């Protein structure tokens, strides 16, 4: 029976929420549905983490747990196949937390609150569905479900050049998924040895190991680029700053916090796991591109004056680091990559939430027009500093754990090429410090720039709830990284195994 599997509820709950939202008549009902639903998702994901760890301790050592598969489209052998390993569990938890925080960050959304939450929940349905799928078709379907609501979310509730940004973002991401679709078709038609039954199931494809090397050379790059576009890989990152700058707060949070992780997750789950030979041979090309992302993103952030642009470029840099670490193809670096996904997800969501709150009060995001906010809104300002510290890798916060693991892992490669790139990427930490401290200094400290700002108030309770949740998670990972580190580390072993075969 389909509902006996706990994972399916990650899709069922958002769908029920969608149905209820349709019936809502006023703001209170909308908020109730959103809060109850997102709390249920957080509870479910926490329960899943605990249960997952218990199962692993009890000796369940399959690659994926909670696996189930139902035939969907028989002629193409497409299943609705679900299952999770430690990485997906961590990503589900991250998504649930950010949806929860995003709900509170958009407490006063205007206009059309009902439509806003409908699209937001549809987006999160796609995200959750993506992380629980192990069938390429379902995965791809949920991936696209997560992309398209962005168009209306940015176009309707965004600010600035929203129409341009929304169109650019949608077309670029859909362009990426066009390559991805071709990659998936290629993988499907080579998924089984001659005469075998073709399949879309990740685990079966990997076990068959039937994609011959020439095809891998063709399929790996297009699949990697397909996901890489969403992961803001260098030449394809331009949608990210515009999109994030125009998007409303909760959408920026979800997009930078979760959606960009779909790219990184897909890169190792599909591109690297299924085509290990080509991954070993071609990783260097993408390593160069992602290396450029890391450094270039950080430098670009230094010269921006718009708070959202600063953060968006910083996201390019940090997400570049995720892909960079994945391409190092060893356990330590890849574990670091997922830690970085979690860390960056929480931290960026926090940043965007705070920026949204500040913008809601001052009606400007230009740091040249603000100053001394620490005196006016101390709570928000302190939170901003904490987020900044997490971003530049202060020990005790999540950024440090993630970046440390990545660079230790990357440095394990002994050849010149990898070392040089590792050192170059390390430099980005220093640049990060530059732009973070620049913002903190100009925006929060110093004299009050604009007299009108003196009348502004500090955070409301829903805003506090949203930010405190995120800060607790950031600090939680920073102080107690062990359990999550182990969970992720163990889940990478099967991937590393196919890479070294």
């Amino acid at each position, binding site marked *: 029976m389909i509902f006996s599997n706990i994972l399916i509820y990650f899709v069922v709950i958002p769908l029920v929420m969608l149905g209820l939202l349709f019936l809502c008549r006023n703001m209170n009902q909308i908020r109730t549905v959103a809060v109850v639903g997102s709390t249920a998702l957080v509870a479910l994901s926490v329960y899943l983490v605990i249960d997952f760890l218990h199962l692993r301790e009890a000796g369940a050592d399959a690659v994926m747990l909670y696996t189930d598969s139902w035939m969907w489209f028989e002629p193409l052998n497409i299943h609705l196949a679900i299952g999770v390993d430690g990485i997906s569990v961590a990503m589900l938890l991250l998504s649930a937390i950010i949806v929860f925080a995003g709900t509170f960050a958009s407490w006063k959304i205007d206009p059309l609150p009902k439509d806003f939450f409908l699209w937001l929940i549809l987006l999160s349905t796609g995200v959750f569905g993506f992380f629980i799928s192990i069938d390429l078709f379902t995965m791809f379907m949920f991936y696209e479900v997560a992309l398209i609501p962005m168009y209306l979310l940015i176009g*309707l509730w965004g600010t600035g050049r929203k129409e341009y940004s929304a169109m650019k973002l949608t077309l670029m991401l859909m362009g990426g998924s066009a390559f991805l679709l071709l990659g998936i078709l290629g993988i*499907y038609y080579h998924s089984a040895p001659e005469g075998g039954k073709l399949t879309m199931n990740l685990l079966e494809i990997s076990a068959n190991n039937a994609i011959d090397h020439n095809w891998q050379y063709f399929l790996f790059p297009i699949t990697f680029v397909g996901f890489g576009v969403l992961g803001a890989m260098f030449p394809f990152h331009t949608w990210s700053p515009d999109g994030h700058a125009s998007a409303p707060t909760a959408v920026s949070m979800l997009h930078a916090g979760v959606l960009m992780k779909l790219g990184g997750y897909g890169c190792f789950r599909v591109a690297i796991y299924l085509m290990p030979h080509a991954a070993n041979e071609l990783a260097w090309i993408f390593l160069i591109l992602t290396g450029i992302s890391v450094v270039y993103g950080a430098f670009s952030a230094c010269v921006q004056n718009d708070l959202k642009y600063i953060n968006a470029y910083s996201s390019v840099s940090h997400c570049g680091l995720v892909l960079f670490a994945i391409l190092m193809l060893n356990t330590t670096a890849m574990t670091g990559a997922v830690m970085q996904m979690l860390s960056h997800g929480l931290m960026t969501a926090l940043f965007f939430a705070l920026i949204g709150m500040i913008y809601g009060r001052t009606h400007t995001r230009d740091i040249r027009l603000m100053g001394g906010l620490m005196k006016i809104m101390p709570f928000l300002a302190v939170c901003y500093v904490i987020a900044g510290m997490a971003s530049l890798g202060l020990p005790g916060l999540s950024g440090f754990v993630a970046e440390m693991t990545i660079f230790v892992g990357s440095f394990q490669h002994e050849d010149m090429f990898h070392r040089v790139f590792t050192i170059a990427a390390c430099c980005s930490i220093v640049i990060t410090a530059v732009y973070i401290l620049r913002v903190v200094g100009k925006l929060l400290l110093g004299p009050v720039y604009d007299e009108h700002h003196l009348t502004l108030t500090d955070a409301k309770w829903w805003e506090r709830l949203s930010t405190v949740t995120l800060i607790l998670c950031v600090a939680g990972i920073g102080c107690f990284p062990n359990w999550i580190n182990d969970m992720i580390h163990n889940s990478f072993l099967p991937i590393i195994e196919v890479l070294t075969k």
Partner: protein
Amino acid sequence: MDYSQFLVMYQEIGLLVLILLVFLFDTFSSKEAPRGLSMFTVVLFGLLTLAGFVTPCCKEVASAFGGMYVTSPTMVAIKNVLNIGVFIVLIQAKGWAHSEFMRVRRGEFYELLLITLFGMYLMISARHFLLFIIGLETASLPLAALVAFDKNRYESHEAAVKYMLTAVFSSAIFMMGLSFVYALAGTLYFSDIAASVIDGGAMLIVAVAFVIAGMGFKLSLVPFHLWTADVYQGAPTSITSYLSVISKGAAAFAFFVIMVQVFGPFYNQIWEWMLYALIILTITVGNLFALRQKNLKRFLAFSSISQAGYIMLGVIAGSAQGLGSLIYYILVYIFSNLAAFGVIQSIESKTGRVDMDSYNNLYSTNPKLAFTMMLAMFSLAGIPPFAGFFSKFFIFSTAVASGSVALYILVLIALINTIISLYYYLLVVKAMFINNQEDCVIAPFKSSVSDRLGMWICVAGIILAGIVSCIYNGIVNTSVHNPEYIFTIFAN
């Protein structure tokens, strides 16, 4: 004479009886305005559609008239798909058919429309070129009359003349091709032609090219598409929607059967590259022209040109699964396109506007119409979880099945084109949802019951036809389990 073979043609005969009943009803009811004619036609046609699904006969391939006429579960499936489409068109046309101007001509409209459907049935089931030609002409000529139905509008006349000339011209070219085929093979039976032509040389190439060109006019493939936009714009909207889905769907199926069954053995040798070129041109040119259209009917004309290119991808595989995906694509395309036309028609009948600018901010005045239009656009663009995504995925996956690199490149071009098409479909969504204009052109209004019913059916189809997998599985199974009549000739 064995009369049981007429039973095989039960769908055609049922339709013919229906046409006669409508004719009698129209003739013997009051002269001024035949009351209840629309209801009568729609209900009877609905019953006929249902009958297609429940009739127990034709579980296997059956033929009549010495093999001129063949039917099989797959053909029943495509006829059912067309029936669903025509049923929706009839419902949507009710408002137009009841306008003052249509009062005395309502009967003609239904009769002519259903006769063309009868012609399409014959095109689908014909296995002899003479019967095929009869079907083709029966399907085209009454349509020209229908296109000219708005006799007070200049554009309608212009469109009818254009349609008439191209229809006749393309039939002529088609028959020219057939005469070459007959010269080579000495027969016009589909299966005999494939067996008796060994190597035709240049003459065969010309024959294939002429046949493709003739069918290309029907399908409005580029470069035979020039009539499409003007005719779509000029014709009454009900007829445009009928032309764009039903006529195209029947022609696509017939094209598949002719190309695979008659010319299948020469695929690699002669028409593989012709088909590739046609597909690339059709998709790309259709898309590029759609980008700049401001009139929504013209816009959908170009979008339907590029959709025809995607449908042609199903021909490449030449397999039972390719045919199944093609039929499924047509079904989904019917739902999506008719939803769009339903909205256009509803708004046109209230305000007379069909330009995209007048749709600005439609969401604030008529949210349900805007929502339907958005679903239609998303489905046409292939966005999940709507049906268009599934149909595109399946047609792409059957296209690359044989695995040559050229096919991957072809599909990549098609995929890049879906991005271009996404841009212009989103422009419509943008106009309705995002564009802000203080003075909305379209005031809030309530569409008529029949319009709403038609749109509800389409919306249900858009949402369910993809997710409910038994539809696709069922369609493919009809052809997979009865492969006798599709010659899987493609050697590669």
